[in-house]
């Protein structure tokens, strides 16, 4: 795709206030499933305290790319990641660092709400802390409340924190999962179509949450909903068949895309 590389270089040079620094940088990242290249030589930089949307038709590699950013592919037997990913300047895939060290800085919210089924609401949020060794009840209480508030679900659950998490509605479960991810005090938040299984009201709540969180976190969100990308994100990346086609300020991607494909996609002409 011609001009692709230019768009990427532009980021940080023209459009962005240079005060913010890059939280995460992906350099020439390719991902293979066996021999199939699902993400092809993608280079992207993510500014601190910004929201970046990944958009593109189904199967273009959005999820696959997102899962590189916290080494989730380590779990997938047939997946192989190439290239470099830097978090605060440190190589995520460095051999001498346990991936757990980085994962604690990177929270993840999945497409389908997945609260731990045998745990209460409280225990779900506290899980990441407890199982990482935090025992002080007072601190746990504080962080649980704080996280649930940040995820905008506190008011709905504060009176029955002991209730099993799976008895919540889908939207509440997803916000609970956001709270669970926030509880380990990450600096980056990865979200894979967090609202795709939810009704419009729950979706709106999640979007409000994201906007609010962007003041503190670096958020990277996969979405197939273009209005959502417009509403929540500062930057948008359009992917197609594993390639990063265009990456720019959200406004520019949707109003004056440089690439023909991007233009067609954001107008809803394919995908």
């Amino acid at each position, binding site marked *: 795709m011609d001009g692709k590389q230019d768009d990427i270089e532009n980021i940080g040079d023209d459009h962005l206030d240079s005060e913010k620094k890059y939280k995460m940088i992906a350099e020439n990242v390719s991902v293979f499933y066996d021999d199939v290249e699902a993400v092809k030589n993608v280079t992207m930089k993510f500014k601190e305290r910004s929201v970046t949307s990944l958009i593109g038709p189904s199967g273009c590699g959005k999820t696959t790319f997102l899962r590189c950013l916290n080494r989730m592919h380590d779990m997938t037997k047939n997946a192989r990641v190439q290239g470099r990913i830097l978090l605060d300047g440190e190589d995520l895939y460095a051999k001498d660092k346990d991936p757990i060290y980085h*994962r604690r800085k990177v*929270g993840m919210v*999945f497409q*389908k709400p997945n609260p731990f*089924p045998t745990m209460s609401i409280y225990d779900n949020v506290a*899980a*990441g802390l407890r*199982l990482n060794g935090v025992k002080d009840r007072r601190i746990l209480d504080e962080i649980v409340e704080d996280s649930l508030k940040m995820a905008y679900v506190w008011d709905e659950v504060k009176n029955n924190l002991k209730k099993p998490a799976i008895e919540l509605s889908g939207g509440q479960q997803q916000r609970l*999962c956001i709270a669970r*991810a926030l509880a380990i005090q990450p600096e980056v938040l990865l979200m894979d179509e967090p609202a795709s299984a939810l009704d419009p009201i729950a979706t709106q709540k999640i979007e409000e949450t994201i906007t609010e969180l962007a003041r503190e976190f670096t958020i990277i969100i996969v979405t197939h909903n273009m209005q959502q990308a417009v509403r929540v994100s500062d930057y948008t990346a359009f992917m197609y068949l594993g390639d990063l086609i265009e990456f720019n300020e959200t406004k520019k991607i949707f109003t004056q895309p440089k690439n023909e494909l991007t233009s067609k996609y954001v107008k809803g002409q394919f995908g």
Partner: protein
Amino acid sequence: MMSSSQKRAEYRLLFKQNVGGRLVVDKIMMGIVFGCVIAAVIPLGSILIEVFKNGISAISIEFLTQVPGAIGSGEGGIGPAIQGTLIIIGMSSMIGVPIGVMSGIFLAEFGDNRLGRTVRFFNDVFMEFPSIVLGIFAFLVIVLVLGHFSLWAGAFALSLIMFPIVARTTEESLKMVPMTYREAGIALGLKKWVITFRIVLSAAKSGMITGILLSVGRIGGETAPLIMTVLGSSQFFSGVDSPMDALPLRIWRMSLLPYDSAQMQGWGAALVLIIIILAINITVRYYFAKKSKKGNILSKLMGMRKK
């Protein structure tokens, strides 16, 4: 070219048209399923009724607590056999359950390789072994080596029956736990073993408990391996190193005797054995139902999950 609505109408005509006939087939299938259930329940139910009818008259405080009387006298009881069965189930579980659970965890979480496949294969072979072969094995390596029959040998033999069952059901239950929970754990920066033991295991608990109870039920009724290991006895417990009685042994001995009174006692012992196994099942399920506060206890007892 046909319009697409014409085409769709034609597709619809390809479906079987005979709706009434299909409803009849539906009813017949239901009937067959129902019939099979009845066919399975009738013999099971009649066995239970038979055991209950014959056994209940033998049961008394004396029967449950005394050592056996003289052969054919119809006196005495099955106290040592009850005690022996409880001890043997306890000891076998203490050996078989941890080994089985650990093997199951290994197979489910780390068994996707050559070693795992080998272990799984031998585990399955082991599960199919006739129990008498395991009895002979325990006889050779424990009874003959030590020179006497013992509870240890019996517990060893029965734990060999237990652990492959527990391993397999544990593996299956763990594999049923959706990947997404493991992924959530990884994203929280948890170590693999923490995820396995604190998240996956608790989600798989109900299936694992079913497997363990199944294996307890299975060993509770084993007779052949016990003949070659604990031998049988008419005395109460005197140490894990000595022979011991057990209900299946007692039932087997008494039912072979040509006296009506002994056979009645055999029925009584059978009833006691059934009640013990049932009681273990209910207690364990009740305990775990109460521990996990969700779902009502009845549905937990039935092994169902409330959604």
